């Protein structure tokens, strides 16, 4: 495209936005509202996703070994565990390690347990991780069959329910976002259509003298892009300040190990960039769609 053409499109697009200022306000408002809602959904969804990933990463099976098992048999159990397909890693934790961890976890109260260092009543443990969280239950059941294993433990139902919930939340979220975007495109398209009747003569003459459709669309493309970009300013401001506030205030209170919000930096910036992209996309699409009717031969 020639530079003179490009600058003409920009000039015309900007001129139209200014000339139809109330329509511009309406179209920009549609983008702003949409993006604020989209941002809220994205923050919720992406954080749920993150939590799910943390849970999946933390999910493990603790297999307690019978107290009277000798070292050789313990090694054998390790090899049997390793041979299970879905197992991604496993680790041996001796009863001394277990006691140390327990004492550490309990903090001040833990000191009381230091007495047990003389006569440790705990089991040796194999800590097993699987490729997928869904594999936890079958793998745990398989390990439990081994004669050297006294019992197994894994965060069974809670984990499964959380993961299930997250999956539903993801579908619902994507559905909502898609519906929001379509609504916004429709709104923008209709708003710009209202301004287009005034321009239909101009478009008619352009077609008559042989302007290409891509050329006629040019200013509308610029107009849509500007609408989208301007419309994303407020949502981005809200995300950058609001998420900071949320992160600072909420993250400290959530002291479950696996619930941790995505850090403000870089998440808020990435989200802002995403909103800018989405805003530009719906703006351009809505705007270019509005001119389609006039370009049919």
């Amino acid at each position, binding site marked *: 495209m020639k530079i003179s*053409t490009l600058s003409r499109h920009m000039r015309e697009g900007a001129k139209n936005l200014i000339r139809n200022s109330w329509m511009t306000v309406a179209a920009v408002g549609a983008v702003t509202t949409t993006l604020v809602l989209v941002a809220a959904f994205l923050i919720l969804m992406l954080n749920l996703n993150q939590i799910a990933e943390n849970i999946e990463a933390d999910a493990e099976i603790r297999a307690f070994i019978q107290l009277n098992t000798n070292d050789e048999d313990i090694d054998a159990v390790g090899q049997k565990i390793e041979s299970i397909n879905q197992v991604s890693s496993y680790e041996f934790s001796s009863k001394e390690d277990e006691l140390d961890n327990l004492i550490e976890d309990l903090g001040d109260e833990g000191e009381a347990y230091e007495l047990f260092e003389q006569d440790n009543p705990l089991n040796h443990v194999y800590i097993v991780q699987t490729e997928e969280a869904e594999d936890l239950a079958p793998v745990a059941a398989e390990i439990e069959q081994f004669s050297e294993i006294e019992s197994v433990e894994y965060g069974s139902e809670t984990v499964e329910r959380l993961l299930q919930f997250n999956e539903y939340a993801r579908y619902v979220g994507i559905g909502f976002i898609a519906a929001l975007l379509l609504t916004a495109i429709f709104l923008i398209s209709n708003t710009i259509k209202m301004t287009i009747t005034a321009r239909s003569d101009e478009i008619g003459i352009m077609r008559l003298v042989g*302007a290409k459709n891509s050329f006629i669309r040019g200013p509308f493309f610029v107009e849509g892009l500007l609408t989208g970009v301007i419309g994303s300013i407020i949502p981005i401001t809200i995300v950058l300040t609001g998420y900071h506030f949320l992160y600072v205030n909420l993250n400290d209170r959530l002291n479950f190990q696996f619930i941790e919000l995505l850090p403000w930096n870089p998440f808020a910036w990435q989200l802002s960039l995403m909103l800018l992209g989405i805003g530009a996309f719906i703006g351009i699409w809505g705007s270019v769609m509005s001119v389609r009717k006039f370009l049919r031969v």
Partner: protein
Amino acid sequence: MIEMKNVHKVYDNGVTALSGISTKIEAGEFVYVVGQSGAGKSSFIKLMYHEEVPTDGKVNINHIDIGKMKKRQVPYLRRNIGVIYQDFKLLPKLTAYENVAFALEVIEENPRKIRRRVMDVLDKVGLKHKARFIPAQLSGGEQQRVAIARAIVNNPKIVIADEPTGNLDPDTSWEIMRIFEEVNDTGTTLIMATHSREIVNSIRKRVIAMENGQIVRDEHRGEYGYED
């Protein structure tokens, strides 16, 4: 240059505008298309610049079948055809100069060339001194001359005028006709639909007369030929 073979045109609402049109117009000809309202004149000339496509039959311009033309090729066809209407179709907020320049700007012509060409054609239609006037400041005849300037600024091979003098008084009409003859003298094919008996009978050219969507008469140096 323009050739139609057994062309039919039926609109979506079922109205038959043209039924079995066959004709040939050579390069450099000057042709009047006459006939009562609804005879099919407009449909006939709209086929020539792809504003309408034939329902059946062939329309060839320079041996290209424009009925089969791809959508994106249409702009290039139109760059070779200048069109003039009864109601001028000027953009009201642009000056005479800008209205003419618009036709070159939107086909992405070189800005320096635009300036030279626009002043040339405005001079040709005798409006160089009114280049900065907007349409509302010009008379009907002057507005039509701006429209003609816009139609010929790209040196088209064909100029099509749909009742160009319909809104003008007789004196002004003769002025417009003088410009058309000049344009035709440079080799441009000129096709003009008209209701003006005086013009057709005094500036004798080929006359294609239409009735009920058919060509009923086609003669060189013909007459208007019927009562309105």
